[in-house]
């Protein structure tokens, strides 16, 4: 407890030190940050603590790096920046993390409390600005409240449906003196996420599932966030039920398993979209029926009963009516489902044995339209991703992406077998995410092979971070699928705007090899299909950061494609 006698015996320290001590207590090992006047006290004391600080080159990248770190490790990522422009530069990072439910805490400097509201130098109302793109945010008005608020911020970020939390720190608060007290568990009047799946609902769901003839699991990022991939895989295999994942769910189920249908949705596989359309019981695990997944809503799984498991009640029955909702932690619910399977013996066995016809149909779809491309004498981007996938096996790879065609090809042609090995901006679709996110993951796992599958447009949005990866010798491999276009937008222009390629040509890109060299990284280039494998091998073997510029076919398209707003069975196939 916070006794007064206790305080007398303790020594007062400044807010910045209190913050650093709380970070230490929270187990924070890594901070991505950028200094400035409002947080100078923090940087003054930073070297006294064990926490490692990575100086990025742009605040947006600090937030993406914290986000990549969080996705790869499951821990709360941390970024710290100064007031005003430092704070506003974090907004895209916050919105990216918010859309994908990623736990991070972002600290922003703020002008001294007496100046707030006065349009002081480098003042920005970041609490107001970030309100709609954070799970919660705080302005710390008194140093006395600092410790409690920081602990609350970490708790909120990591619990329930995770998300970014921003803590705004006025200069007089982090320079003001107070005591560091004993850690206490934060308590809230109204915030208390429900982790326990309702047993009765789970039983009903399992009875429905046992009777299904054409069941399908539709798996989203929630399963990854809840660290429940193993349980999900176990359940699917025991009941012999095929699995399709969303973009965010990649890695939650091993794609080399015969039950894997790959990704569904706008650029999903033929078999996944057909299976959704013809399923009779669809179980959504930690997915939110996003419009890029469902296409036209009334045609999505129109004949299926829908069971929806999610930690967030607002996700349930938001876009689609659900027959059996189950609110709870994915891990808890999946464990209970597995218990039901074990307890129901014969019923479960019958269920598992009863899907032959369904699986045969899926196998037929698989053969009918495979993900494919034709490799001629110009390098095809899909070929590059397939090669990356082959050559990276055995190196425990983590793949990040930029946004656009590169992202979709990475999702389609890389074979994901492990959760938390895939970092992509799904909800917001943030170009410039991939390199800083890869950097964050590489900090967490220096020994793993971390690859950013990039586009020539996107990489230019945060290429300044090459300086950071070189400075800290983070051996990130950036593989640019260089098509000379803002390819995904060009694809839409080709298909829906009569090839009116307005503002999508990237004909003034830098020489990426020289750019890499200018930063002190290794730069490589592949121009022919024969060069791809040796160049990738060279890149993966290099102990430091590498940029590989792969000159790929300029007007290759991502297929299958469901035109926006159409039924997902309505795929353009070539």
């Amino acid at each position, binding site marked *: 407890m916070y006794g007064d006698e206790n305080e007398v015996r303790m020594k007062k320290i400044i807010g910045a030190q209190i913050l650093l001590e709380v970070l230490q207590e929270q187990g924070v090992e890594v901070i991505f940050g950028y200094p400035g006047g409002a947080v100078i006290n923090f940087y003054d004391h930073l070297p006294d603590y064990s926490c490692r600080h990575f100086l990025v080159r742009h605040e947006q990248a600090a937030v993406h790096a914290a986000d990549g770190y969080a996705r790869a490790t499951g821990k709360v990522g941390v970024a710290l920046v100064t007031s005003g422009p430092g704070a506003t530069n974090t907004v895209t990072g916050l919105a990216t993390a918010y859309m994908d439910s990623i736990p991070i805490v972002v600290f922003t400097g703020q002008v001294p409390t007496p100046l707030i509201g006065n349009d002081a130098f480098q003042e920005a109302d970041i609490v107001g600005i970030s*309100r709609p793109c954070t799970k919660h945010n705080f302005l710390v008005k008194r140093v006395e409240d600092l410790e409690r608020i920081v602990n609350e911020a970490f708790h909120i970020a990591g619990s329930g449906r995770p998300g970014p939390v921003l803590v705004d720190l006025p200069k007089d608060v982090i320079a003001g003196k107070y005591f560091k007290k004993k850690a206490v568990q934060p308590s809230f009047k*109204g915030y208390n996420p429900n982790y326990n799946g309702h047993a009765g609902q789970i039983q009903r769901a399992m009875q429905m599932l046992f009777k299904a003839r054409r069941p399908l699991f539709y798996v989203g990022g929630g399963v990854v966030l809840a660290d429940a991939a193993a349980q999900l895989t176990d359940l699917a295999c025991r009941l012999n039920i095929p699995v399709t994942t969303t973009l965010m769910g990649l890695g939650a189920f091993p794609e080399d398993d015969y039950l894997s249908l790959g990704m569904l949705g706008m650029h999903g596989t033929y078999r996944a979209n057909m299976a959704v359309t013809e399923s009779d019981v669809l179980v959504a695990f930690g997915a939110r029926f996003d419009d890029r997944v469902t296409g036209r809503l009334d045609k999505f799984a129109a004949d299926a009963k829908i069971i929806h498991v999610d930690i967030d009640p*607002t996700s349930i029955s938001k876009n689609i009516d659900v027959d059996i909702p189950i609110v709870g932690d994915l891990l808890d619910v999946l464990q209970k489902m597995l218990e039901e399977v074990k307890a129901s013996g014969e019923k479960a066995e019958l269920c598992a044995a009863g899907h032959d016809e369904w699986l045969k149909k899926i196998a037929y779809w698989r053969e009918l339209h495979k993900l494919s491309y034709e490799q001629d004498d110009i390098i095809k981007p899909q070929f590059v991703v397939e090669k990356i996938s082959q050559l990276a096996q055995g190196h425990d790879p983590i793949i990040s992406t930029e946004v656009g065609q590169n992202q979709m090809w990475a999702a389609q042609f890389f074979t994901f077998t492990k959760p938390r090995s895939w970092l992509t901006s799904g909800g917001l679709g943030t170009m410039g995410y991939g390199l800083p996110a890869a950097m964050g993951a590489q900090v967490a796992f220096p020994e793993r092979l971390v690859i950013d599958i990039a586009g020539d447009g996107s990489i230019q949005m945060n290429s300044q971070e090459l300086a950071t990866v070189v400075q800290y010798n983070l051996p990130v491999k950036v593989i640019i699928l260089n098509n000379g276009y803002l390819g995904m937008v060009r694809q839409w222009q080709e298909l829906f705007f009569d090839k009116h390629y307005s503002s999508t040509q990237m004909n003034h890109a830098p020489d990426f090899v020289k750019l890499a060299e200018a930063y002190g990284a290794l730069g490589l280039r592949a121009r022919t299909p024969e060069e791809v494998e040796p160049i990738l091998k060279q890149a993966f073997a290099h102990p430091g950061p590498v940029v590989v510029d792969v000159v790929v076919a300029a007007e290759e398209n991502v297929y299958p494609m469901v035109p926006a707003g159409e039924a997902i069975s309505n795929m353009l196939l070539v």
Partner: protein
Amino acid sequence: MKHIISVLVENEFGVLSRIASLFSGRGFNIESLTVAETDDSTVSSMTIVTQGADHIIEQITKQLNKLINVIKVVELTESVQMAREMVLLKFAVNSGAKRLELLHLVEVYQGRVLELGSRSLIVELTGERTKIDAALEVLAPFGIKEMSRTGMVALARDSVK
């Protein structure tokens, strides 16, 4: 359909704007909103009147519940609620006859006269929204010079449960 949502929130700076920006950001509409401290000074009570189909109202209550500072959300259906609004009206009245007629009507609506000047009159009316609407219609011909109307406040009744 009109819905009344009663929300208990932590009485903290910025909470009102969190609620307001939730409504604007998600395209929900607010017809009226009242806020006041409760007997516990760390807790405020809000009454929000909104419109929408049932699934929208369900989303609104879920989204409100998701806010960290929200303690409790209750949707008050008409059968279980007591709801009141108040309006203050200023009339310009010159003729004695008109004044008598007006005073009579105010009485019919159980209103109160707050100020009786030689040329003007201020009246307070309290009641359900429909009653206030009806009164305003009847009183309009007297020439309402100024008007100030509260949003709705509401409580759940104990007797119906």
